[in-house]
């Protein structure tokens, strides 16, 4: 197991606990998707792992290390990266600078150069636009920049918050197939996705979250077949 969440309760500041007693795990070579209605706390799980919420109870274990109360930069150094939702790039910086900033916590310049070339060969369109301001790119290209920035860290775990949001169906398909490629290259993926059907198709396992609590858990295929999931999140009738 590469990442394990045990009885996690978390919220923001002095506000109420958004997550209550959440349990979740992620194995090597796995894509796990968290689905659930708006406000269920899906993104809050990713943010908690990344040290961006106030964890009130429970533990987050990465490998054999307890990362529950580490700071974001320490968590990045431990091998976890996150692609946040929506505005997740630096629009005023060039594509190449965006990638360099992705590797901000890394010191080894030759390693950074090497990773940059790897990201360029993984997303050839980014190499074409490397000297262009990222703000002028299309939504799909910007999402690739955002994922590329995280890949600069060569993470063991990549967390993606709504990677398909705002993308055209064809571009979405492309992003999902890239996510599968990233997994095949050896990075475990933990993803939150509104488009549950598409996401579960490529997922090994999935969790359904309701009002900050675990509701259902299972393999991607089984969750897709589950009538309750179908009714709630996939838009199918009974």
């Amino acid at each position, binding site marked *: 197991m590469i990442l394990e969440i045990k009885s996690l309760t978390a919220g923001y500041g002095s506000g109420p606990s958004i997550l209550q007693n959440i349990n979740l795990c992620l194995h090597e070579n796995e894509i796990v998707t968290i689905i659930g209605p708006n406000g269920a706390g899906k993104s809050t799980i990713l943010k908690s792992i*990344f040290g*961006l919420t106030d964890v009130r109870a429970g533990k987050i274990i990465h490998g054999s290390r307890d990362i529950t109360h580490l700071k*974001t*930069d320490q968590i*990045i*150094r431990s091998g976890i990266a*996150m692609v*946040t939702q929506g*505005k*997740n*790039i*630096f*629009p*005023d*910086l060039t594509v190449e*600078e965006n990638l*360099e*900033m*992705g590797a*901000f*916590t890394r010191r080894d310049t030759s390693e950074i150069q090497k990773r940059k070339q790897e990201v360029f060969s993984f997303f050839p369109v980014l190499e074409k636009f490397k000297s262009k301001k990222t703000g002028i790119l299309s939504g799909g290209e910007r999402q690739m920049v955002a994922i590329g*920035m995280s890949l600069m860290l060569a993470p063991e775990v990549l967390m993606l918050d709504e990677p398909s949001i705002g993308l055209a169906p064809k571009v979405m398909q492309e992003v999902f197939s890239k996510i599968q490629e990233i997994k095949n290259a050896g990075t475990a993926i933990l993803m939150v996705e509104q488009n549950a059907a598409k996401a579960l198709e490529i997922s090994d396992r999935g969790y359904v979250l309701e009002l900050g609590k675990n509701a259902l858990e299972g393999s991607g295929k089984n969750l897709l077949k589950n009538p309750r999931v179908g009714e709630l999140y996939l838009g199918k009738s009974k």
Partner: protein
Amino acid sequence: MSELVAQLIWNGLVTGALIALVALGLTLIYGVAGFIQFAHGEMVALGAYSFMVMHKLVGWDIFPSAFAAVCFIIIVGLLFEKVFFRPVRDADPMIPLVISIGLSIGLQALILIFWGPNILTISDTSFRSLSLFGGKILATPSQIWAVILSLLLMIGTTIFLHKTKIGKSLRAVASNRNVAEVFGINVDTSMTWIFGVGAGLAAISGIFLGFEQNLEPMMGVIIAIKAFSAVILGAVGSVRGAIIGAFLIGLSESLLVGLGIIPSGFTAAIPFVILIGMLLLKPEGLFGKRFQSLRQ
């Protein structure tokens, strides 16, 4: 070109260079911290006054005095960031803006308390003007230094922002602070850098300004207004825009008044006229993107 015009252009370049150093700091602080630092002009004034203290009262030579004054102002700038602006960093940008207005008034009062309302001077008779370009232009050594050094500082700042890791991270924080945090860029450190660089540039401008004019408590406000106009003229948040805006203001002041087009009593109105005209005709600035917010 007549000698008068050449001389006026030179004077305009000197003024423009000094405005540009202030405008550069103002636009950088706006870009990274997200508010207009109204007390930035007082950093210029404090720079001039502390240089005067070191040079005329303590009696140090020009270079050690300048170095000490710049260091002192950088420390003051860093302290201001830590004490006044850091606690309200995530608040509405109006709050740090109002704090900075308060700081500006407070610092003017401090200058009045310590040095009184009377004007003071730095320059003495040992600074003789040199003639450049076959006698077409008369320039003091401090003016030549001001133009050369500010050009170097502007180029240096641009290189710093675009070629160094820290510089790029400052632009990243300006572009999207949330993402910067997600990738482990320390926003505290970025603020320290930007306020330090801004204060240092303001202090250098203040020292040179002290050779050009008298020291008086309101000197900071006057140059800050010009720098503020330059920043808006160029496009708020844009480095290139602020520098070009500063030289445009310096040159138009010098030429319009020097050639008798505008009576000298109206000199102070020129930046405002340019500012209002710009806001009416092209509110996004010379280098701004139309209808696009500069910050996310």
